[in-house]
């Protein structure tokens, strides 16, 4: 794989599972330029199936980066002005240390010998990247969904390493419903005979059917009931009547099949298992003796929590609980709910009210951060 920037992380990292790792690759990408004052760096965290290619053409998939709607020259997060950094999560499959990488001990891909990692492990591995890039304090950390969780984790683990934080459509711990949906995705992968306890990777094949179903589950949860009804309704796929078969008669079926099978071309099945597990294990309150209040104590970081009214995966109520915890800790927090029918996916699609809000926040935070640095 060419076109992938990789940093070899030589310092050792003690994972939450107690295993120590060192000398592992972290794949990353940057956009824009770090200015002289170093006050314009934004660390973006990607979601479950994202990668480091935030905007522009993804050199591997040859498609637009996952956050092209929000990040780029002249966009809400303007790369003419800001230096945007994004790393592929460990456990992922876009060049960072993950289950498809070669285990030096056995000279074979890790598969299920890869350790179970956590959101904290993911975030801690990325801090090294900031050291490497020479950034002492970020302007902002942000991301949606699992990217939002990483933003919260970053602030809790590295207090005041960022001037501001914008966790989007996320929570401080995974709910039973979130875990259940992730379990559905994992079971779909593991039920595919090709998966073979993760050993498919040595045979250079992929449990496509299981992984596609896992992706379909995800896609249902990213849309709202209303959004789905409006987009597809009962419309039929390129036919006048039912086929009286199990073909994709309905447009919504065709959509899910397309999304599912397009996904298997770019993602590793074992990575889905590991990353969904990391999300399920996420519970910020468990990491601190005093719970969430302790997690956010002494924060000078300015937070903006954003939720979407039709998101049933990470509801407004859950996002507000994050706000309550930040308030209880005396942190500086803002909260906005974007009214939209586009569900959890709202942060990835063109949702003008959302884009205006993030632009307004980041631009105003940049002004404040510049002033702080001047003093």
């Amino acid at each position: 794989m060419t076109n992938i920037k990789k940093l070899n992380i030589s310092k050792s990292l003690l994972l939450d599972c107690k295993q120590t790792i060192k000398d592992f690759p972290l794949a990353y990408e940057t956009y824009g330029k770090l200015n002289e004052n170093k006050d314009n760096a934004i660390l973006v965290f990607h979601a479950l199936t994202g990668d480091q290619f935030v905007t522009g053409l993804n050199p591997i998939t040859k498609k637009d980066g996952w956050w092209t709607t929000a990040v780029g020259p002249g966009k809400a997060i303007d790369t003419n002005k800001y230096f945007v950094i994004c790393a592929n999560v460990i456990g992922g499959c876009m060049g960072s240390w993950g289950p498809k990488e070669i285990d030096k001990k056995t000279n074979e891909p890790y598969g299920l010998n890869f350790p179970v990692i956590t959101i904290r492990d993911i975030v801690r591995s990325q801090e090294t990247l900031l050291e490497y890039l020479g950034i002492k304090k970020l302007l902002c950390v942000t991301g949606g969904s699992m990217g939002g969780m990483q933003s919260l984790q970053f602030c809790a683990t590295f207090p005041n390493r960022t001037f501001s934080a914008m966790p989007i459509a996320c929570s401080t711990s995974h709910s039973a419903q979130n875990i259940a949906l992730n379990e559905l995705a994992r079971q779909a992968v593991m039920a595919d005979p090709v998966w073979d306890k993760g050993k498919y990777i040595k045979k250079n094949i992929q449990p496509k059917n299981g992984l596609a179903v896992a992706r379909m589950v995800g896609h249902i949860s990213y849309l709202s009931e209303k959004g789905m009804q409006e987009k597809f309704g009962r419309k039929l796929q390129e036919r006048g009547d039912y086929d009286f078969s199990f073909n994709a008669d309905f447009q919504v079926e065709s959509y899910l099949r397309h999304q599912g099978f397009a996904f298997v071309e770019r993602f590793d099945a074992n990575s889905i298992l590991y990353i969904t597990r990391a999300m399920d294990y996420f519970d910020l309150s468990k990491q601190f003796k005093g719970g969430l209040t302790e997690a956010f104590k002494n924060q000078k970081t300015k937070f903006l929590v954003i939720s979407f009214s039709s998101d049933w995966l990470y509801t407004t109520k859950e996002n507000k609980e994050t706000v309550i915890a930040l308030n209880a800790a005396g942190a500086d927090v803002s909260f906005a709910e974007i009214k939209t029918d586009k569900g959890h996916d709202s942060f990835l699609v063109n949702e003008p009210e959302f884009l205006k809000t993030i632009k307004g926040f980041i631009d105003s935070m940049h002004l404040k951060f510049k002033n702080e640095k001047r003093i």
Partner: protein
Amino acid sequence: MKKEFKVIAELLPKNVRVLDVGCGDGSLMDLLIKEKNIEARGLEIKEEYVKKCIYKGLSVIEGNAETELHQFPDQSFDYVVLSQTLQAFYNPEKVLKELLRVGKSAIVSIPNFGYWKVRTSLLIFGKMPMTKTLPYNWHNTPNLHMCTIKDMFNFCNEKNIKIDKILGINEDKTSQIKRSNLEIKNLFSKIGIFLLS
């Protein structure tokens, strides 16, 4: 800038923590930060106002003061400000108690229904009053619990809420209101500002 906001800013000491409940587009917060180096936070129900605050770099939480003040810990602010909104709540008493739980003190302003123009509107014309501070019709007004400065004064006494100061605003004039001049000030003030604790 509203005269009322200037009066509120003058009432507040420097370098304190203030929660502005129903902060609108953040004009008062802006003023408090610039003039008094106050650490200001806002709570606002209207999405468009919330966004305006965010664009200005102000800290604001989108939410309903009637139901969401519980998220703020006891005595977490030095002052809680509520500008001309008390009358719009279903349960003003509950909100007032919440303000005094969250803040060590509260500044509450009310549009005065005892103002002479309001009184004459009803007395002479027999119509529900419409003024600059009360611009609504009877059927579309958000103001469910209109009251006068005197009503508010009596209410606080009844509920054992300590009144530290009352100011009346009429056009450009601001004056202090006491028990002794309550009747006359209740007639000539458009807005009453109560400092409570």
